[in-house]
């Protein structure tokens, strides 16, 4: 039995009711359906907004973060008035303003192996709008184990990938990517940047696929991967097949329950100890400021040249991380050195590289030049 629509709802959804593929019955289906959106960031913003506007009856939001000023370049569900607010609460307010007739359920916590099955069990479709590999593998495996479709998308700078992974009818994420890249090989958006409108384009496609699945119309992206590039303005499609060796959905699958995804990926999914090179290898900005009084310390900036236009430390030598391995001969291993980048992630990798090349007197500026700007020199901008 599908729920009836009120007169107000009929007016609100008039443009849907006019499309024969949706119609009154389709709109009732949307009202009766539920979607879990994992992440309320770049992708989650347009997904949650459009699903709310479309009248999906119950929408769950999982996020543990707070709204930060650097989010607003692309995370359009949040606003200046909700800076500092829990993201799920900020998103819920905006969605209910757009459509007070829906129910928004918030999970103000990280999506983990402990809570994922319980949270996702209540929803028809899972939308993967996360920003890290552990949570992506977790969302995939949860969807496979619960027999639900996982509407996947991922973005980087100008590139987007979208697919619907639904193991009952086609391949899953692991069929395509059996294992994640080693930590550090693929930069995140926080390090590599992303064109603000890119998640708008890609998230809107995710929302489209979600609505098609709920309505049972059209040809979903099951078994196809869409590759979008904003600079070339190209849309490429490739065909995906089930991988017979898939460890979660193949005939000889050996992963039968959720695993430790942080261990599997070698990186934290939600632990915010970023910008650190680990015990003994870090130097705090204030300590560096004191040590610099005595000179002799070489500052190595491993950011890209265009980032130097935003902020720089006087006297620092710039060798972008990607060139470091080839330019080690330019550095004196006998000299004390402090490596830094924007927030400490790239410099931690640079430090690993330097140590493995025999450098011993190296430290990582914890939290990068942004932490320096916060703690030592407020005249520098934070980006």
């Amino acid at each position, binding site marked *: 039995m599908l729920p009836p629509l009120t007169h107000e709802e009929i007016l609100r959804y008039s443009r849907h009711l006019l499309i024969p593929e949706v119609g009154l019955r389709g709109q009732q289906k949307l009202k009766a359906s539920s979607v879990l959106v994992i*992440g*309320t*960031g*770049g*992708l*989650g913003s347009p997904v949650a907004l459009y699903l709310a506007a479309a009248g999906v009856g119950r929408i769950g939001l999982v*996020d543990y*973060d707070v709204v930060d000023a650097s989010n607003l370049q692309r995370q359009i569900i949040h606003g200046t008035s909700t800076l500092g607010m829990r993201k799920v609460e900020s998103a819920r307010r905006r969605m209910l303003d757009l459509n007070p007739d829906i129910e928004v359920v918030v999970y103000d916590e990280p999506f983990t192996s402990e809570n994922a099955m319980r949270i996702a069990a209540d929803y028809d479709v899972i939308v*993967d*709008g*996360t*920003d*890290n*590999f552990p949570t*992506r593998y977790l969302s995939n495996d949860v969807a496979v184990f619960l027999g639900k479709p996982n509407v996947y*998308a*991922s*973005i*980087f*700078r*100008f*590139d987007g*990938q979208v697919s619907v992974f639904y193991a009952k009818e086609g391949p899953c994420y692991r069929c*395509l*990517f*059996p*294992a*994640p*890249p080693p930590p550090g*090989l*693929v*930069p*995140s*958006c*926080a390090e*590599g940047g*992303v064109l603000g409108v890119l*998640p708008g384009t890609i998230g809107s496609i995710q929302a489209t696929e979600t609505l098609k699945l709920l309505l049972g119309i059209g040809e979903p992206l099951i078994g196809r*991967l869409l*590759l979008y*590039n904003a*600079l*070339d303005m190209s849309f*490429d*499609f*490739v*065909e*995906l*097949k089930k*991988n017979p060796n898939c460890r979660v959905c193949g005939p000889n699958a050996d992963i039968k329950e959720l695993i430790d995804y942080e261990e599997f990926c070698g990186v934290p999914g939600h632990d915010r100890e970023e910008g650190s090179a680990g015990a003994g290898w870090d130097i705090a900005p204030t300590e560096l400021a004191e040590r610099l009084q005595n000179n002799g310390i070489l500052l190595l900036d491993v950011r890209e040249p265009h980032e130097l236009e935003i902020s720089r430390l006087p006297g620092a030598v710039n060798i972008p991380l*990607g060139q470091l391995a*080839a330019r080690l001969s330019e550095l004196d291993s006998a000299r004390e050195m402090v490596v830094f980048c924007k927030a400490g992630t790239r410099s931690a990798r640079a430090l690993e590289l330097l140590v493995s090349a025999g450098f011993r007197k190296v430290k990582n500026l914890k939290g990068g030049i942004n932490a320096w700007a916060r703690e030592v020199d407020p005249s520098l901008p934070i980006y």
Partner: protein
Amino acid sequence: MPSIKIPTPLRYYTDQKAEVTVRGQTVAEAMEHLIEQYPTLRTHLYNGDGQLRPFVNLFLNKTNIRELQGLETPLKEDDQLLLIPSIAGGAQ
């Protein structure tokens, strides 16, 4: 000649080139010619024993080479190879 389309994350290693023309009778030879032109790509594409890394997919036209003859898949003049690495971004 066949070409290989390079996704943004890997363009860092190809002087920002989006598409590279290559020589070769097979996918392996074409990839070898790509790496000859851009040597730093090798560690990003292959693991120690010469296998494509598990987070890198190579599609010939629309089909994963895994479903063809893998790296030994023969290439025609106008074939297009597409490199698809896993990317994680979305929320941040």
